[in-house]
C-alpha cells in the first residue's frame, strides 16, 4: 500500500509541473466595466505577471475640448465616467468656475450636492452589482439594478436623460427641479434604506464572497499613494482622505455645514460600525473586501447627505441662477481642480489664452491611476483572483480611455 502511495506522489509531482503560459483575458466586455484586455503570464494557476492593455474606448476627448467652448464640452465629460455623469459635469463646471472666479448661488450649491450624491449611490450600486457578476453571482446585480432604475427615473425627470445628463453646467444648472420631485426623492430614500440590509446579506457577509475577497489583492497605503490611487481604493487601505473634506475651498464650500464622516477605518473601526456587519476575521486592511465595504458605507453616507441637502435646498429662498453664456470668455491663465467622484479623485485642468475656447483641457482620470496599480496587486495571485482584484478597483473604461 505504502509503495503505491509513494509512486502516486511522484506521478502527481511530475504532472503538475507546467510551462509558463501567456493568457489573454479580453478584449471584451468582461462585465459593465468596459472594454479591457489583460495579458497574464501564468505558471499553472498562478499569475506571475499581469499587464492591462487599455485604449479601446479612446476618443481623445481632450483634443475635442480644444475645439469647443467650456460649456460645450460638458456633454463630453458625461461620457467619461458614464456611471456617474453628474459628478463628471460637476468636476468640469467647478474647474471652469475656478478659472472664472465665479461662485454659483447657495441654492445651486445645495442642488449640486443633492444630485451628485444621488449619482454616487447609483454608481456604487453598479460597482457592487457588477462586482458580484465578476465573482460569479448574478442575483446582487439584479437587486442593485432594481434600485438604480428608480434613481435613473428620478434623473430622467430632472434632465430628460438616463445616463448622459449634462445637467450641471458652467455657472449653475440647466434647469431647476420639477414640481413634486423632492417628495419622490424622499420616498425613494425611505424605500431604499431598509434594502441596504439585503445587500449585506447577499454579499458583505456571504461566506463565499468573503472567501473570494478577504486577504486578496492587498494594497498597502504607501503603494496606494505612490501610484496616485484615490477614492474608495485609497480609503480601503485606511488612508483618511476625502476631498469633500480635504479638497480645495471652491469644492469643500459646497459641503459647508453638512455633517458626514469619511468612510475609512480608524483605530480598527469604521464610522457607525455597530450598524453594519462586522469585518470578517480573514479580511486585511487594503484587500478587496475592504474596498468593497468602503463603497457600501459611502452609499449610506451619501443617503445622509442627500437628506441634509433636501432640507437645505428647500429652505433656500433665493433664485437658482442662470448658467453662464455658451461662449463665455475665459480669462487667460490656468486652473486645476480635483473633486471626489465615486471612483476617486477626478481632476480637470483648463488652460486658456483669453478666448472662449480653451487652449488645452486635461482630464486626470481616477480609474486610470487606480488601474495602474493592478499589476502589483495581481502578481502571485490565482487566475480566478484577477477579476476579483479588477472588480474591487471599480474601474470604468470610458473614464480611463477618455
Amino acid at each position, binding site marked *: 500500500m505504502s509503495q503505491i502511495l509513494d509512486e502516486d506522489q511522484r506521478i502527481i509531482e511530475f504532472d503538475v509541473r507546467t510551462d509558463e503560459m501567456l493568457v489573454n483575458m479580453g478584449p471584451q466586455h468582461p462585465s459593465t466595466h468596459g472594454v479591457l484586455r489583460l495579458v497574464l503570464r501564468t505558471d499553472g494557476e498562478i499569475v506571475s505577471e499581469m499587464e492591462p492593455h*487599455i*485604449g479601446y474606448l*479612446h476618443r*481623445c476627448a*481632450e*483634443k475635442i475640448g480644444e475645439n469647443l467652448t467650456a460649456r460645450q464640452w460638458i456633454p463630453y465629460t458625461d461620457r467619461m465616467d458614464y456611471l456617474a455623469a453628474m459628478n463628471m459635469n460637476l468636476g468640469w463646471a467647478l474647474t471652469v468656475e*475656478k*478659472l472664472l472666479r465665479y461662485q454659483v448661488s447657495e441654492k445651486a450649491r445645495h442642488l449640486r450636492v443633492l444630485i451628485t450624491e444621488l449619482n454616487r449611490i447609483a454608481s456604487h450600486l453598479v460597482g457592487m452589482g457588477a462586482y458580484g457578476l465578476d465573482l460569479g453571482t448574478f442575483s446582487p446585480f439584479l437587486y442593485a439594478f432594481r434600485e438604480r432604475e428608480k434613481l435613473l427615473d428620478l434623473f430622467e425627470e430632472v434632465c430628460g436623460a438616463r445616463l448622459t445628463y449634462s445637467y450641471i453646467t458652467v455657472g449653475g444648472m440647466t434647469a431647476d427641479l420639477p414640481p413634486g420631485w423632492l417628495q419622490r426623492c424622499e420616498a425613494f430614500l425611505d424605500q431604499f434604506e431598509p434594502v441596504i440590509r439585503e445587500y449585506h446579506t447577499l454579499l458583505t457577509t456571504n461566506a463565499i464572497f468573503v472567501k473570494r475577497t478577504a486577504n486578496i489583492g492587498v494594497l498597502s497605503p504607501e*503603494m496606494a*499613494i*505612490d*501610484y*496616485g*490611487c484615490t477614492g474608495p481604493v485609497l480609503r480601503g487601505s485606511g*488612508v483618511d*482622505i476625502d476631498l469633500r473634506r*480635504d479638497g*480645495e475651498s471652491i469644492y469643500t464650500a459646497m459641503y459647508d455645514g453638512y455633517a458626514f464622516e469619511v468612510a475609512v477605518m480608524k483605530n480598527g473601526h469604521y464610522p457607525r460600525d455597530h450598524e453594519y456587519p462586522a469585518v470578517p476575521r480573514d479580511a486585511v486592511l487594503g484587500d478587496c473586501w475592504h474596498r468593497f465595504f468602503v463603497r457600501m458605507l459611502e452609499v449610506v453616507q451619501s443617503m445622509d447627505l442627500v437628506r441634509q441637502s433636501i432640507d437645505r435646498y428647500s429652505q433656500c429662498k433665493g433664485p437658482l441662477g442662470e448658467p453662464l453664456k455658451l461662449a463665455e470668455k475665459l480669462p487667460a*491663465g*490656468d*486652473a*486645476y481642480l*480635483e473633486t471626489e467622484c465615486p471612483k476617486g*479623485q477626478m*481632476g480637470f*485642468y483648463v*488652460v486658456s489664452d483669453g478666448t472662449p475656447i480653451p*487652449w*488645452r483641457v*486635461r482630464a*486626470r482620470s481616477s480609474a*486610470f*491611476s487606480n488601474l*495602474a496599480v493592478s499589476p502589483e496587486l495581481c502578481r502571485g495571485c490565482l487566475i480566478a483572483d484577477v477579476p476579483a482584484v479588477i472588480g474591487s478597483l471599480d474601474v470604468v473604461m470610458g473614464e480611463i*480611455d*477618455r
Partner: protein
Amino acid sequence: MRGTDFVTELEAAIEGAVIGRNLETLDPWLEISPDKLLETCRWLKESCEIRFDGLQCITAIDWLETDPKKAAKVEWEPHTEIVYHLWSTKARASLVLKVKLPRWKDNQPGQLPEVSSVESVWRGADWHEREVFDLSGIQFLGHPDLRRILCPEDWDGYPLRKDYEMPLEYHGMRGR
C-alpha cells in the same frame, strides 16, 4: 498657499532649480529647469517638510499657433510646457511644477524633446508619462517601458500637438 518657505529651502538645496514662479495665482506654480527636474522632484518628495508624496497628473501643453495671422500677434515663442500636479497627503496641499521644452529636440522636426522621467520618484508616473509620450510626443529619459498606451502601437503622430493632422486612412478605415 500655506507655508511657502520650502521654496527658499529648495533653492538652497538645489541651486538653479527654480527659474520662475508665481505663488499668488490660483494654483501656485514653480518653473523648474529641465536638467534639475528629477533632483527637484526627489527633494520635494523625500527631503521637503511638506512631503509631496503624490503625483496626480502630468500634462503637456503644446504652445504653437497654427493660424499665421494670429501667430504674428502672440507674445510667446512656440514651445512645449509640461505641467506636474503634486499633492501632499500630510499637508493636504498641492503644488504645480512647470517645465519648458522646445517643441522638437534641437529644432529638428520629428526629433522628440527630452526630459528626465520621474517614474523612479513616483511609480504612478509610469502610465502618466506613457500617456504624454503617446499623445504629445515627449521622450521621457529613464522611463522603464516608454510605449504608446491609448493609441495603437502603429499609430502615426501625436494627436495633442496643435499641428497634428488626422490620418485619412488607418488599416482600411476612413479617418475623416
